[in-house]
């Protein structure tokens, strides 16, 4: 039975996801270096990892899901580098704590639904994504509960009064959500303040920053196990990234153990002394 995990997004909703495979991880890292297709790749990846139907997600949900994919499939922390009094400092952040704070704040601020309250209008609510500058309307819900996705061309028929109501609500939300500050307590006890700008472009950029890892190290590890142990993990399509990491950890541990054994047998080996002549 495959392992699944559940992520809580905004509005008290849940999404079930399967683990990231090694292949998914590799492609995700490649997408991280591509500004144009990153967001599109991320959305498709989440669709493919989701178990069952994926509910309507907004940009905050995209952030939550992306970071929790990292949490469950890659690592529960992310190390940020910054400068403190002119020196580079490393800060390891528990990303689940950060996600909890973002989710809670988003839930406080908005639920993405606007009750239209217009008598005899065919839709009673509209779901929006205030983070989407170009097209904030996601879908309408009719009074019979049917969901109608917003499509290009609908604006020709939507009454301007309804559009204005939606625009006002979005402006109100954005006014409230321009910048939020989240205090994250680090392992060291220090408190890191992250300023979280509530714009789509910022959030996508932050997602990329958090999930981006070193692709070179990945390829190096794949190369090492292939050449030294004749195992090509790329052929094992279903192996998850965390399983791969376990193998690498064991491989590295074994390599280190072998190296220590060699060093013990030949203590002068690292001094580059010429071999004694018999």
């Amino acid at each position, binding site marked *: 039975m495959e392992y699944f995990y559940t992520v809580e997004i905004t509005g008290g909703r849940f999404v079930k996801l399967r683990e990231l495979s090694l292949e998914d991880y590799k492609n995700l890292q490649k997408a991280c270096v591509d500004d144009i297709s990153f967001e599109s790749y991320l959305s498709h990846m989440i669709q493919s990892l989701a178990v069952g139907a994926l509910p309507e997600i907004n940009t905050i949900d995209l952030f939550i899901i992306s970071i929790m994919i990292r949490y469950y499939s890659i690592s529960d922390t992310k190390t940020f580098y910054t400068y403190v009094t002119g020196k580079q400092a490393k800060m390891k952040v528990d990303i689940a704590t950060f996600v909890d704070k973002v989710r809670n704040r988003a839930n406080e601020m908005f639920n993405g639904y606007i009750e239209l309250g217009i008598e005899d209008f*065919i*839709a009673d609510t509209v779901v929006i994504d205030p983070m989407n500058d170009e097209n904030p309307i996601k879908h309408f819900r009719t009074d019979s509960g049917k969901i*109608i996705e917003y499509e290009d*061309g*609908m604006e*020709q028929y*939507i*009454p*301007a009064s309804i559009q204005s109501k939606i625009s006002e609500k979005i402006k109100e939300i954005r006014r409230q959500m321009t910048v939020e500050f989240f205090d994250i307590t680090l392992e060291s006890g220090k408190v890191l303040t992250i300023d979280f700008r509530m714009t789509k472009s910022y959030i996508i950029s932050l997602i990329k920053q958090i999930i981006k890892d070193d692709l070179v190290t990945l390829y190096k590890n794949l190369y090492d196990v292939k050449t030294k142990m004749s195992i090509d993990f790329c052929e094992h399509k279903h192996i998850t990234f965390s399983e791969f990491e376990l193998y690498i950890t064991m491989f590295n541990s074994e390599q280190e153990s072998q190296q220590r054994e060699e060093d013990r047998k030949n203590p002068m080996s690292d001094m580059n002394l010429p071999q004694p002549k018999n």
Partner: protein
Amino acid sequence: MSEDSKKFIESLKEYNKSHTKDIYIPSLMRSVKFYPMTAKHQKYLIESALDNPIFSAVFHQKVYDIIKEVCSEPEVVDMLNVFDKDAILIQLRYNFIDKTYDEKDMSSLIDEIKSNELTIKVDPDSVNEFEIEFKIPTIKEDAKIYSDFLKSKSYIVSPSSDDEVRQMLANMYIIELCKYISRISIAGRDASMDFKFHGIEECMEIVDHLGKDVAKAIEKFIKNLKDKNLFIYKLDEDTTVEINSELFS
């Protein structure tokens, strides 16, 4: 587009047809039913804010196109004149976008519009040897003039020097004179020009050569007309409703 979306759009069309509002037309002295403005109309008007602020040619064009789409009596649209325009736009905002302006209730303006009477008198005039027949431009003619001028070399979207601003203001003055001229004849000679058969650039060329006295006479006619028929809509001492694309944002 999905079947559900198509059905949704059909429902939206039905909703719009059944939710018309009465818009008072000063020149007709009666109300005409208008369909709701849509998000698309609002977007067009907001986009026209990027236009040259002195001419606002795109705004005038879009206004005509929108009125043509939302007026339930198409035959009436081509009869609407430029003095109806402001009244119609204010009522469109009030009925279909927002009943307030600058957070102030606009209902007093709606009453004011209904009580304002147009006093339109179009008598010909003679100046020196020129005979001028005047007209009140319709919103259709107004839109056509701006549309033609937009395509001309003289139109500058963003003037970048004082000279260009001066040139634009001069063009604006000439265009305004052209709008109100129906025909110009030279007395005693078989020479006349019916402005409706000529493009704006040709009309501007003619008006440029008419001389100061004729221009002054046309200017006087326009000023008299505007003094009596162009109303400034104020909500209070500090709040004048500006008739431009921001009225619909």
